[in-house]
């Protein structure tokens, strides 16, 4: 028995016309369905004194809003759709790897790349919208116009590092689990799986916090990234 590991490759499940559908996409669709179902069930008949599900959902959303507000120091509800969705999706995606037969979408390069791209363009969008073109463009010339290339590179590299951090952590964790399972047997990976839960939550938190910090830096007034 040999260990066949292909951590950098994605498995194509089927083709939808010309479009190849991988396991990442199907898992993401499942996560989307679950999230929408929970949201719809919880907030379908939203009342001032809601049931337990509504309370749980409200507490979660408000906790995220509080964290975002603590970093941005502005009304968080304008940025919450992006940032809270980022956090909720990442928690579900990272922890979906714990389910048997399911691979975490974030353990492949495409999903972190897509999220990092969205964050990258969101930062530019929010910066432009809140400051205007002139003021926002001027930020790239500060503190010295000579630093313009460096500023541009830093914009790209921090998005790249955002992607690589999430991908590396999740992928290496699954790789380590696979190796230990191959070497030691059935129940030895359990502690590592518990560690995997912690890692998944922390990575989701870090990704969201960094995205928030980048957006805060772009709109000004927040903590510097």
């Amino acid at each position: 028995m040999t260990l066949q590991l292909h951590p950098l490759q994605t498995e194509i499940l089927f083709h939808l016309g010309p479009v190849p559908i991988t396991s990442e996409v199907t898992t993401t669709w499942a996560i989307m369905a679950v999230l929408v179902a929970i949201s719809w069930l919880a907030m379908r008949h939203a009342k001032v004194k809601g049931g337990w599900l509504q309370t749980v959902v409200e507490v979660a959303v408000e906790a995220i809003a509080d964290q975002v507000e603590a970093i941005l120091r502005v009304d968080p509800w304008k940025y919450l759709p992006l940032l809270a969705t980022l956090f909720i999706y990442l928690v579900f995606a990272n922890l979906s790897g714990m389910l048997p037969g399911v691979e975490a979408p974030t353990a492949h390069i495409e999903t972190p790349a897509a999220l990092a791209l969205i964050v990258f363009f969101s930062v530019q969008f929010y910066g432009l919208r809140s400051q205007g073109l002139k003021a926002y463009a001027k930020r790239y010339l500060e503190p010295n116009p000579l630093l313009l290339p460096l500023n541009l590179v830093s914009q790209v590299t921090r998005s790249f590092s955002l992607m690589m951090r999430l991908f590396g952590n999740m992928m290496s964790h699954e790789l380590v689990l696979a190796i230990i399972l191959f070497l030691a047997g059935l129940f030895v990976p359990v502690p590592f799986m518990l560690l995997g839960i912690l890692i998944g939550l922390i990575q989701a938190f870090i990704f969201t916090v960094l995205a928030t910090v980048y957006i805060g830096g772009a709109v000004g007034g927040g903590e510097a990234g």
Partner: protein
Amino acid sequence: MTIDWWTLLLQTVNFLLLVWLLQHFLYKPVRAVIEKRRALAERALTQAEATEKQATAAKADFEAKTAGLDEARKAELKQAHETAEAEAKKILADARQQADAIRAEAKRDAKESQAEAVAGVREDIVQTAVKMAGTILAKTGDGALNEVFLARLLDQIGNLSKEDRARIDGDIASGGAPEIATAAKLSRAEQGAWTKSLRAALKFTGAPRYSVDAALLGGAELRFPHATIRFAWSDQLKKAGEILQNSRGGAA
């Protein structure tokens, strides 16, 4: 390392779709509920503030009332105190007055009893004096003064008032002779002399009866059925004692 661009595109679209879905199904309702709750809380807060204001006003009112009550009670207490003091003073004054009256009465009583005692003593003294005088007179009036007594009797007969004289004349006319009482027994000669002089003065005819009455001390008494003519030391002594008593008593 290969990147599946289709998957990248699909994941991007998936995520943006998820953002839109959650915005519609999660964030909007949550925010609406939070806003509703905040409005409710604000309304409750304003209501609570109004209630608190009301409560404060009620408390102030109550405090004011309590203060008024306190003052009223104080005034009442003061009045009661004054009344009690006045009553006490009055009682004290009454008691003093009563005591003064009792004392004055006692003094008066004492004075009266003293006066009575003095009067009693005086009377005793006067009586004793009269008795002593009577004893002495009784011894002295031993016949020697019978002539004087007779003269006195005759004087009295001469000085009789018209009514007495008419009564005696009536008695004599009805044939009675007087009874003659003397302190000392008269001798036969004296009796004859007395009968003679008295018959001359009163114009009676019968023989008078002679008797002795030691109570007269000295002197003589003519006793008719309806009238009496007397001259006695005992009368004089009694009169003197009375005069003595009255004069001393008046002086006291």
